[in-house]
């Protein structure tokens, strides 16, 4: 356990400090995220019901794409410097490297969301009914994006493919978790009046609890699977 922690900390801090020094990823994430949300805001009408329904979707879209951008940048930088090979040669378990990278991406996404979520609330005139639930939903979504994205960006960037391939692959895998995620955010932002939950009036049947439970299950399964596969995936 101690070995795990020291390895984890080493990789985690290295990436975090490198990122903070370069100041490359976070600004581009923010710009991309804000632009996406702004375009979606312009494209939706101004009736408040429309905004309340579009808002959560727009928020998740911008989080998804900015998160992918961040992961792609960080891995392509590592590939340029031959860092990944060096990391794997170090006496750190590949699974530990994976978890550390997931943690770094999580931190990036959280910092990004600290800016983006208030921006979304302002742009789409949303009202937050339940702050802890909002944070929980966002964290679960971040975990999914980071978990799957880290594995695939290590693979795809290592293979030298162009950027669009990563987005395609990760979006395809994350498709099932986005439905409960958007729904949970819609509930949090009050776009789904409690009376309507459970009817077929909106494209959702279920409760907030089940949506959260589903996201937890998805995260658990996929992070475990990615953790197991990471070592095999990046070995030479």
């Amino acid at each position: 356990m101690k070995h795990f922690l020291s390895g984890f900390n080493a990789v985690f801090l290295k990436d975090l400090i490198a990122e903070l020094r370069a100041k490359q990823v976070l600004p581009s994430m923010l710009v991309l995220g804000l632009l996406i949300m702004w375009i979606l805001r312009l494209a939706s009408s101004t009736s408040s019901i429309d905004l309340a329904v579009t808002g959560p979707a727009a928020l998740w879209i911008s989080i998804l794409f900015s998160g992918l951008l961040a992961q792609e940048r960080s891995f392509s930088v590592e590939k340029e410097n031959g860092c990944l090979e060096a990391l794997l040669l170090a006496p750190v378990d590949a699974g530990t490297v994976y978890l550390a990278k997931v943690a770094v991406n999580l931190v990036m996404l959280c910092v990004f969301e600290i800016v983006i979520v208030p921006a979304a609330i302002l742009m789409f005139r949303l009202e937050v009914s339940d702050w802890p639930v909002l944070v929980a939903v966002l964290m679960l979504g971040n975990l999914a994006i980071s978990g799957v994205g880290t594995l695939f960006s290590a693979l795809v960037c290592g293979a030298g493919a162009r950027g669009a391939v990563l987005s395609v692959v990760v979006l395809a895998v994350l498709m099932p978790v986005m439905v409960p995620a958007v729904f949970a955010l819609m509930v949090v932002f009050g776009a789904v009046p409690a009376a309507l939950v459970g009817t077929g009036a909106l494209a959702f049947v279920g409760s907030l609890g089940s949506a959260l439970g589903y996201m937890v299950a998805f995260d658990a399964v996929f992070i475990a699977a990615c953790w197991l596969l990471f070592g095999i995936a990046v070995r030479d």
Partner: protein
Amino acid sequence: MRLTLMFLSVALLLLSSWIGLTAGRIEPECRNIIYMHVPSSIAALVCFCVLLAASVGYLATSRVSWDRVAAAAAEVGLIFATLLNVTGSIFSRAEWNVWWTPSPRLVTAAVLWFLYVVYAILRISLGGDRGLRARVCAVFGIIAFFDVPMVIISARFMPDIHRAGFSFDSAWQTAAFLPALASMLLLAAVLIWLKADLLAARDMLEKEI
């Protein structure tokens, strides 16, 4: 051998159509699409299982033959997933007058199709190093396989548009369904076999050059 199997598959499909249009006819005529729709969905899922097995096999043994089977299964699976979505869409238009709707089964079918397409994209775009491409695609095959039950569960969150499970009323209908199922599965097996052999031949050709 493969040719005979293919003819057998066509014969089974004709048999199923014959029974299906006479004794095993389902009443609103358009519902007979089910005889082609459900077998292709089962075939698409079976291809996905083959893809998973081949991916695991490749990662475990690093033998290229597994990778070829995976590529073949992905391509054939794409065909069956396309069939699934097309027949499903026609069926939903015939039954409920909409070409598509976010209902659980339809979304699952669409996601399956997308996963196959993404596999194909990965195969094509990671041109250079064969071993690396095989590894990346194998990892994606395994992760995507976990996606399918997840989609099925998450689809329960969507409005259940009159999609109850159906059962066959009479023995004739089952008699019409089973040959169709056998036909599609046989066709899938033959196509995967054929495609894998083609890829092996191409690899042999390119290696000697």
